[in-house]
């Protein structure tokens, strides 16, 4: 099984454990990922409301690059936002020929062109569950996640909108991640808010709004006594994990729920070393939860990529102090 792979910006930095675990696990599961050569940012959630043509062209450039790579017909994205943007662009370029024309005109400036429908954009979870298959995965499990209570969190973008019923899971109440976690031996708790919003970038715009959305999710997971939350999206992971201490301060609560990627869970169940999967890179430590299945690991593992070096000729950012 060979796929074009679009990691997206998050996986290069804050979500590096997602990238590390994805690469480790895909190898073990026989998913061959060919990274899209010279890919760029998908524009995330905001750009589409600022400049439509530029936003579509930004995404379409990735589609065009992936489509011209040798014979690849499927494009995998691990990040829900990237997945949505890629899928949306492919869908609307086909549905609205005018948009397709404008976008391709923009791409032509870079010598590129994309024919809508020539790639099938898929989420990593879709490929894992439906192409590898749960039985095949279960057969490879050496360290079942038995006794671990997990809340499966899908967020809002992976299965919505449906784009003519092409979602691989129920858009209102998805279950594929639940099935996967069960196949790994974990105990999946009921998590009614599984497809509710994590707040996305609202932490930057209106922190109070975002904190309330995050609190609901943490509260719901705690109510069902989940040991940890499993996510499929770097944005969800960041909000629930990195902002958890701030949410606790804001509401005077004391939640301590680690948030891991589903690829990390697969890796652990396949007996991989936690460090290789980036486990330990989370803010809210998963050490206590994972001790339930006998995993021990260094809290701050090596392997986090060094901060990108600034161009030596670059001028300092406003307010930047100290060493360049």
């Amino acid at each position, binding site marked *: 099984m060979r796929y074009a792979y679009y990691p997206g910006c998050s996986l290069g930095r804050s979500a590096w454990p997602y990238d590390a675990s994805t690469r480790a696990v895909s190898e073990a599961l026989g998913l061959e990922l060919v990274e899209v050569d010279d890919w760029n940012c998908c524009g995330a959630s905001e750009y589409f409301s600022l400049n439509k043509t530029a936003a579509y062209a930004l995404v379409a450039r990735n589609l065009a690059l992936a489509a011209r790579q040798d014979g690849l017909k499927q494009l995998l994205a691990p990040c829900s936002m990237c997945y949505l943007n890629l899928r949306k662009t492919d869908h609307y370029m086909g549905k609205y020929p005018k948009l397709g024309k404008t976008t391709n005109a923009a791409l032509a400036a870079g010598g590129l062109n994309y024919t809508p429908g020539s790639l099938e954009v898929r989420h990593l979870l879709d490929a894992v569950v439906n192409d590898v298959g749960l039985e095949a995965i279960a057969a490879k499990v050496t360290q079942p996640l038995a006794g671990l209570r997990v809340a499966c969190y899908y967020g809002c973008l992976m299965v919505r909108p*449906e784009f003519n*019923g092409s979602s691989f899971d*129920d858009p*209102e*109440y998805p*279950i594929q991640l639940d099935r996967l976690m069960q196949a790994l031996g974990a105990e999946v708790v*009921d998590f*009614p*808010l599984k497809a509710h919003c994590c707040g996305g970038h609202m932490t930057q715009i209106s922190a109070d709004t975002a904190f309330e959305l995050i609190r*609901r999710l943490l*509260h*719901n997971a705690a*109510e069902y006594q989940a040991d940890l939350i499993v996510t499929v999206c770097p944005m969800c992971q960041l909000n629930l994990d990195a902002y958890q201490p701030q949410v606790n301060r804001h509401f005077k609560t004391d939640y301590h729920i680690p948030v891991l990627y589903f690829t990390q869970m697969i890796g652990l169940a396949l007996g991989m070393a936690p460090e290789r999967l980036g486990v330990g890179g989370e803010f809210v430590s998963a050490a206590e939860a994972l001790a339930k299945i006998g995993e021990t690991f260094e809290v701050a593992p090596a392997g986090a990529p060094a901060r990108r070096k600034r161009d030596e000729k670059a001028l300092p950012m406003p307010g930047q102090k100290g060493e360049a």
Partner: protein
Amino acid sequence: MSERVGVYVCHCGSNIAGVVDVEDVSRWAGENLDDVVVSRDYKFMCSSLGQELIEDDIKKEGLTRVVVAACSPHLHERTFRRACASAGLNPYLFQMASIREQVSWTTQDKAAATAKSKAMIAGAVERVKLHQALEPNEVPVNPNTLVVGGGIAGIQAALELADAGYQVHLVEREPSIGGHMAQFDKTFPTLDCAACILTPKMSDVGNHPNINLLSYSEVEEVSGYVGNFRARVRKKARYVNEADCTGCGICIDKCPKKVVDEVFEAGLGYRKAIYRPFPQAVPKFPVIDRESCIYFERGTCKACEKFCPTNAIDFEQQDTALDLAVGNIILATGYDLFDSRKIPQYGYGRLANVYTSLEFERLCNASGPTEGKIVLRDGVTQPKSVAIIHCVGSRDKRHNTHCSAICCMGALKFGHLVMEKTGAEVYSFYIDMRPLHKGYEEFYDRLLEEGMHFIRGRVAEVTDAARQPGEEGKLIVQAEDTLLGMQRRVPVDMVILMAALQPRADAKDVGLQFGISCSMAGWFTERHPKLDPVATMTDGVFIAGTCQGPKDIPDTVSQGAAAAARVQGMIAVGSVEVEPVVATIHEERCSGCRICNNLCPFNAIDFLQDKAVSYVNAALCKGCGTCVAACPAGAISGAHFSNEQIFAEISGLLYDVVRGNGAKALLPVEVPA
């Protein structure tokens, strides 16, 4: 001798004349088409005066062929054929050109419409000259009728026919007749109890000398044609001898095996392995459910047999097959309830106190599992607040696009019953209120008076995840109140889902079996949606009730009665004319390849083993022409659709090309540049 053709162009008010220059068309036909001796246009050809015009011309001008250019033959072919016949002309020496449906309604371009009308009339004229006089066949009608489905529609139809003195075979799949209506508690808007009005009819069916009730039976095979159908019915083994059983019910009391009753109690109650779905069941004889019976599983038990005072239990009983000869068939096979699990965000199957509408009917019903007490899934606690969600699986692109027609009124009824029995607050979440029929709007007013709360908005989700104080331990219903323009979260103890009415899961197979078609969704298709709602395109097969589309009890009963009236009409006449427009196989050219046998959509072609040739049953043939086109030997000819007739029509349609005048020949003279 050349034919004398009359051409009549209809204005259809402004329907045709608004787009087609009818005077020009009629003048052109009279001047240019060979053998046309009369050509007229008229405001409404279908009116008596229009018909008289044709009749007079046939008599005075000696017309031998008639062409009417008007609407679709579906509507008025019969009218004009009759006009021809009454003037002494064989009705099949007539042809219609559809210049309304196929011309004036499809375009605004007057020049093109006028040109196309001329071409179509030219085609009809060329064709009609080659028509042959045909005589319809007449077949007798068997006065017995098969009614399939013993819900209220089938019951009504059977009783109407039986009371009129005709023999009816009523086939019901379940052990008792009664259908969904027997499961209901009260009926809207009058709130009379469903059983009180239904059971008298059920016992009438059970006791009627003219009704042969075949419960726990299914139709397996249907053959034949209008007036002369044969149906094979499989009577499933009850393991209870109907001749000996008194219906005392001791066997049921003594049976040690209790299982969830997924059919009659909608999964909310229990029944024994030997059971009668409900106390007033007709027939009264119980049935042993082989799947759950201890004897059939382990080979011992037979408690029912030991205690039966009349030795009516028979574990050796086998399914039996019955062959019935009937003249007409009424299908009243009903509906299935939408599976609410398909909308997981409403929590059905996950959150205990979310009920379906059918479950709630049983909950509310005095003969139901709680004897009519409205309680939560724990079986004890009365709800203090109840939410009713409308349109669950209806008016939803992801599931069914249709409106299920009964849910608004059902929700009002439930609201009334909840308030009356428990005093709980009731919240109805609706998209639109649709209390359409007599007395319904008044019932809605009554519930507004009684204090039921109405929130306009489709529910986003039902959750047990509390967010605010007061929500703990409750089911929270979240919806956008589209009248207030804000999100609302209503904490309640119980949620009732008004699940959609859907076509039966096997509707398409049943349709195929009886030779009738279904809509894309699976509802049986009526002959005409407005003017012929209970007949189908297959003569002698009628439909009634919810198998045709969602409807309430009054509409269902009306259709049952209407279908019976149609059947009575067929029986009263005693014979039926069969269209002579059929295919004929020329035996000497048939190679016996049987390609046509399976292609025929009406099962009209048999294979004669002795002669090794295929044979068309004229009574079944609809003249569709599929076999004619498919026969590799050209051994089949379709009356009224011979090759010569079709080629003549085509050459007429290509008038301008054939005459070498180019495409402009048919256009009116003053064409704007």
